[in-house]
C-alpha cells in the first residue's frame, strides 16, 4: 500500500530532476549562474533568451508530449489488458504524421510553419474517426480497425515519399517523421496544449474502468462499467493527446509502451495506480531522451524518435523475455 502511494511522488521527483537538467544542459554552453540570472532579470540577455525561448518551451513540450504518451500507453494497456499495447495502436499517431507530412509535401509548411501541426491535428482527427467508425463496437475490433487505419496512413505516407516533389521535400518529410523537439516555439505549444490537456484530462478519469477490467469485460460490465463509453473515452483521450503531440513533434516510439511497465511493479500492478506515475515518468523519459539528443555531438541532429527507439527496442526484448518467464 505504501509503495503505491509513494510512487507518484518519486515519479514527480524524477521528472523535476529531468526538467532542471533539461534547462541547464544544451548545445549552447551557458553557466548555470548566468542562466538563473538571465531568467530572473527583466532585461533581455543571451542567457535569458536561451532559457525562455529555447529550453523552456522545449521542456514544456517534452512534458506535454511525454505525459500524453505515458498516460495513453497506460490506459490502453489497461483497456486491452495487453502489456504490449501502446498509443500507436489506434492509428491516430500515424494519422497525425500523415497530415503533417502532406503539409510538407505540398509546400504549405514553408509559407506558414504552423500548417504542419494544424494538418497533423486534422489527420489525427480523421484517423481517430475512421478507427471508431469501423471498430467502435468491441475492444477487439477497435485494435483491428486501428491497425487497418495505421496501415492505410503508412501506405499514403510512403506514397507521399515516393512522389516527393523534390529531394529536399522528401528529406524534410523523412526527417520530420523521426520526431524532434527542436525548433519548436511557444506558438507550437499554444496550438497543441489545449488538445493535449483535454486528452490527458479525459484519460485521467478512466482509473475505475481500467481497474474493473482486470476482471475481464463481463465482470467489469456487471460492476457497472459502461464498456462502450470507456472505449469512446479512451479513443478520444488518446486521439486528442497523442494526435496533438505527434502533430507537433513527429512520431516518438516506445515511451508509451515502456513507461507503464517501469511503474507497474511499484504500484502492485493495479491499472488505475499506473496512470499518474506513467504520465510523469513518460515526461521524464522524453526529457532524458531529448537531453541525450542535445548532448551527444553529431554532425546532423540526432532525432528524438531515433533515440527513444534505440533505447526502447532493447527494452521490448527484455519485456518479451520476462513475459516468457511469467506467462504460464
Amino acid at each position, binding site marked *: 500500500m505504501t509503495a503505491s502511494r509513494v510512487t507518484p511522488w518519486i515519479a514527480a521527483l524524477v521528472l523535476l530532476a529531468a526538467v532542471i537538467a533539461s534547462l541547464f544542459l544544451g548545445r549552447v554552453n551557458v553557466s548555470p549562474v548566468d542562466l538563473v540570472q538571465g531568467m530572473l532579470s527583466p532585461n533581455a540577455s543571451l542567457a535569458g533568451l536561451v532559457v525562455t525561448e529555447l529550453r523552456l518551451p522545449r521542456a514544456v513540450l517534452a512534458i506535454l508530449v511525454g505525459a500524453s504518451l505515458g498516460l495513453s500507453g497506460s490506459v490502453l494497456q489497461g483497456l486491452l*489488458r495487453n502489456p504490449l499495447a501502446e498509443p500507436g495502436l489506434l492509428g491516430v499517431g500515424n494519422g497525425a504524421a500523415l497530415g503533417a507530412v502532406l503539409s510538407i509535401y505540398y509546400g504549405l509548411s514553408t509559407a506558414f510553419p504552423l500548417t504542419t501541426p494544424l494538418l497533423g491535428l486534422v489527420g489525427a482527427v480523421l484517423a481517430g474517426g475512421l478507427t471508431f467508425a469501423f471498430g467502435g463496437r468491441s475492444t477487439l475490433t477497435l485494435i483491428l480497425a486501428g491497425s487497418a487505419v495505421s496501415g492505410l496512413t503508412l501506405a499514403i505516407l510512403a506514397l507521399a515519399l515516393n512522389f516527393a516533389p523534390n529531394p529536399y521535400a522528401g528529406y524534410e518529410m523523412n526527417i520530420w517523421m523521426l520526431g524532434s523537439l527542436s525548433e519548436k516555439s511557444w506558438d507550437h505549444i499554444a496550438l497543441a496544449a489545449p488538445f493535449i490537456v483535454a486528452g490527458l484530462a479525459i484519460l485521467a*478519469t478512466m*482509473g*475505475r474502468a481500467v*481497474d*474493473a*477490467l*482486470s*476482471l*475481464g469485460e*463481463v*465482470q467489469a*460490465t*456487471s*460492476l*457497472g*462499467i*459502461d464498456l462502450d463509453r470507456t472505449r469512446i473515452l479512451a479513443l478520444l483521450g488518446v486521439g486528442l493527446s497523442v494526435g496533438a503531440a505527434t502533430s507537433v513533434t513527429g512520431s516518438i516510439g516506445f515511451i508509451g509502451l515502456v513507461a507503464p511497465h517501469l511503474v507497474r511493479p511499484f504500484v*502492485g*500492478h*493495479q*491499472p488505475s495506480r499506473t496512470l499518474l506515475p506513467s504520465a510523469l515518468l513518460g515526461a521524464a523519459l522524453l526529457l532524458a531522451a531529448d537531453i541525450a539528443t542535445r548532448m551527444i555531438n553529431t554532425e546532423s541532429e540526432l532525432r528524438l524518435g531515433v533515440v527513444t527507439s534505440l533505447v526502447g527496442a532493447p527494452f521490448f526484448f527484455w519485456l518479451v523475455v520476462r513475459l516468457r518467464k*511469467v506467462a504460464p
Partner: protein
Amino acid sequence: MTRLTATNLSVQRGGRTILDDVSCTLEAGMFVALVGANGAGKSTLLSVLAGLLKPERGEIALDGVALARIERRTLARRRAYLPQNPRAEWPISVERLVALGLTPYLPAFGGLPAMLEPRLTYAIDVCDLAAQRLQPATTLSGGELARAMLARALVGEPDVLIADEPMTGLDPRHAMDTVARLAALAANGKLVIAAVHDLTLAARYATHLMALREGRLAAFGPTSEVLTPDLLRSVFDVDAAVSGTGRRTRVDFTDVRATKGV
C-alpha cells in the same frame, strides 16, 4: 423484498435457439440451483437474468422495474454476477481483486474509503483467503482463485447473487463451504442463483431447483418436490437414483447402457 421476474425469455444465437420462452419468478430467500446438460442454456440464462445479455424476446424485472431501465451502478450494487472460470488479467493482490467488487460504491478517484475496509476484510476471511490476502491473484491455484472471485462477488453485499458454476475446481471442503455459504446467504434474505453440476450438493443445499433442457424450462420448484429420477432422466438422458432427504440426499447416476455391454 427482492423479486426477480423473467417473462417469456427467448435468446437466439447464430440461428440457433438458446433459450426458448423461459418464465420464472425468483424471490429473496431462495437458493436456486440451475441444472442442465452441457449446452442446455444455463450460462445464457444466467447472463440474461444478470442483465448482461439482452434477450431477443421477453423481459426481466427486478422488483417490478425492467433491468434495462435500472441505472448501471444501481444495478451493480444490487446484483453481483460471477461468470464461469473468471480470470485475473494482472498480478494484483487478492485484497485488491476482492476490493474490485466494491467498484459501484467507490468515488471516481482515490483509494478504498476506510469505511469499506471492514467489508473487504470480512469477505476475505469468510472465503478463507486471509493467508493469501497479499498474494498476486495470478499465482493462486484454480480453487483459490474461484474463492477470491466469490469473495469479490460477496463483498458488495448484493441482494441478488448470480454465479455460473462457482464450485468448479474447488476441493470437497471448499466446495461444501461455498455451497453452505450460498445457502446461508439465501437464508439471510438474499436471492442466490447458481449453475451447479454436482447434483448431490445442489440437492442438499438448494432451496429450489431449476432445470433446463434444450433451452426450455423443464422444471422449477422446491428441491424436494422437483428432484426426481424422472426429471433427471429427461434432463440428462441418464438413469439416476435419488435417495435420502434434506442434507442427506444423494443423487447417483446409474448408466444402464454402459453396464449392459459388459
